[in-house]
């Protein structure tokens, strides 16, 4: 109804006279629609009529000895008449409508959903290499063809599709589930030592223990056998055991006595760039700082809609802090501590289970280098499974 009123156009009129309600009666009798009648004062009423009925309203007013005045005009005609007098505004409106219609044909934001391990940036980068990104025409996106290419390029993905039904394209992925390494429980195996050590304790789940706590073992030495004999028969087992032993390791590292370190000069420069999709527009240059010898701190201010949708328009600020590099002698204590920390971290990654008990290390002068030597004592699991190879002619071999 409001739309009809807008299209037909309405006028707010005042009816002034000695008896203005007679004009209303005449308009009603003449089938002139009017509404929202209020009294301004006893001699004046205000009403809304359709714009097209204004001449008939005027006639009714004259016949009722009243005066009809138009206060305001509303509706499509009034709006377009107003725009006609403002050509710049009209041009802007036309341009805005055209831009809205054209921009609907393109993808302006891309959102990745369903990824856990594979970074969204990697997926978007691969998509960009395949020609899909911000500014891509929606009709040019073929989800089926894109799926084949994406799965070919990204083996970590198990399923891929892209939903580009609006300016916001949603990339849906499912990551491939890596098949775990299966242990065959029927495969005959022995448990051997992965490295030399003094056995502290053993927990044998299957098989025959051939070593015991307190015994020193060498790498590859049999700890638990998968072969057992019972009533003249030899049985094959999938031997399993946890064997904890005290181990000793040594390490040696050579480090240069000096290294290049950076010193900030105090000079800074700021660069502002306008980011439009994949295009960059430099707004303000930095203060002549070489990009090779400065630290860059980049901050992006993206234009985001209230719903959280990020638009492909952003302002990027880059602050450069200039520095110089120079040869500096290394601090002995700091170097020793850093090497010890790195060595311990590497040991923990290497050990299957267990803990480091003691670490002793020294740093000695070796001419132009520092020689760092370490001895580490640990308690760790050294049992490892080795399959028993069976020779069908001669019997079996461990």
């Amino acid at each position: 109804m409001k739309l009809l009123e807008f299209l037909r156009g309405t006028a707010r009129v005042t009816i002034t006279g000695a008896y203005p309600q007679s004009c209303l009666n005449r308009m009603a009798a003449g089938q002139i629609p009017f509404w929202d009648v209020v009294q301004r004062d006893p001699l004046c009423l205000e009403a809304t009529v359709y714009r097209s009925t204004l001449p008939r309203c005027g006639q009714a007013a004259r016949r009722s000895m009243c005066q009809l005045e138009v206060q305001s005009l509303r509706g499509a005609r009034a709006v377009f008449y107003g725009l006609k007098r403002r050509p710049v505004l009209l041009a802007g409106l036309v341009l805005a409508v055209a831009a809205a219609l054209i921009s609907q044909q393109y993808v302006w934001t891309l959102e990745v959903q369903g990824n856990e391990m594979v970074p969204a940036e990697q997926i978007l980068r691969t998509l960009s290499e395949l020609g899909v990104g911000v500014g891509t025409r929606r009709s040019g996106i073929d989800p089926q063809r894109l799926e084949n290419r994406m799965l070919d390029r990204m083996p970590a993905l198990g399923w891929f599709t892209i939903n580009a039904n609006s300016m916001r394209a949603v990339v849906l992925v499912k990551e491939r589930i890596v098949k775990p390494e299966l242990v065959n429980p029927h495969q005959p195996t022995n448990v051997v030592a992965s490295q030399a050590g003094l056995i502290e304790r053993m927990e044998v789940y299957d098989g025959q223990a051939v070593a015991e706590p307190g015994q020193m073992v060498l790498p590859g030495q049999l700890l638990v056998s998968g072969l057992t004999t019972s009533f003249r028969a030899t049985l094959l087992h999938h031997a399993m055991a946890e064997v904890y032993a005290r181990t000793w390791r040594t390490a040696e590292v050579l480090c240069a006595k000096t290294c290049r370190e950076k010193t900030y000069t105090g000079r800074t420069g700021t660069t502002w760039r306008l980011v439009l999709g994949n295009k960059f527009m430099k707004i303000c240059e930095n203060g002549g700082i070489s990009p090779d010898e400065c630290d860059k701190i980049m901050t992006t201010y993206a234009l985001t809609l209230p719903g959280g949708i990020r638009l492909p328009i952003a302002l990027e600020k880059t602050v450069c802090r200039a520095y110089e590099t120079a040869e500096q002698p290394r601090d002995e204590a700091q170097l020793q501590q850093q090497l010890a920390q790195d060595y311990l971290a590497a040991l923990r990654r290497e050990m299957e289970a267990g803990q480091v008990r003691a670490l002793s290390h020294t740093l000695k002068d070796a001419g132009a280098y520092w020689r760092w030597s370490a001895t580490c004592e640990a308690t760790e699991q050294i049992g490892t499974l080795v399959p028993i190879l069976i020779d069908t002619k001669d019997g079996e071999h461990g």
Partner: protein
Amino acid sequence: MANSPRNLVIKASERLNLPADVTAGVSRVELTGSSRLSVENHRGVGAFGPEFMELLTAQGPIAVRGRGLSLLLMNQRELVVVGQIDSVTLPQGQDG
């Protein structure tokens, strides 16, 4: 007045269980709460004001008293008064 042709038609309609507003052009007055009064088969507006309105019908004037009264809609068949309606006085002394 009591034996006028209109009254005879009204009485006949009542006897025959026919709607008098259709057969005899009797006004149909509908009050919704205390904020909207609709009158069908009216003959115009006699007096118009925010506190008092007189609506003309074939049976006589209907007096509407209240506050902030205005005419929401009026055409040849129906008119609608809105506002805070305190009382409606019907013709022949029937109070609403």
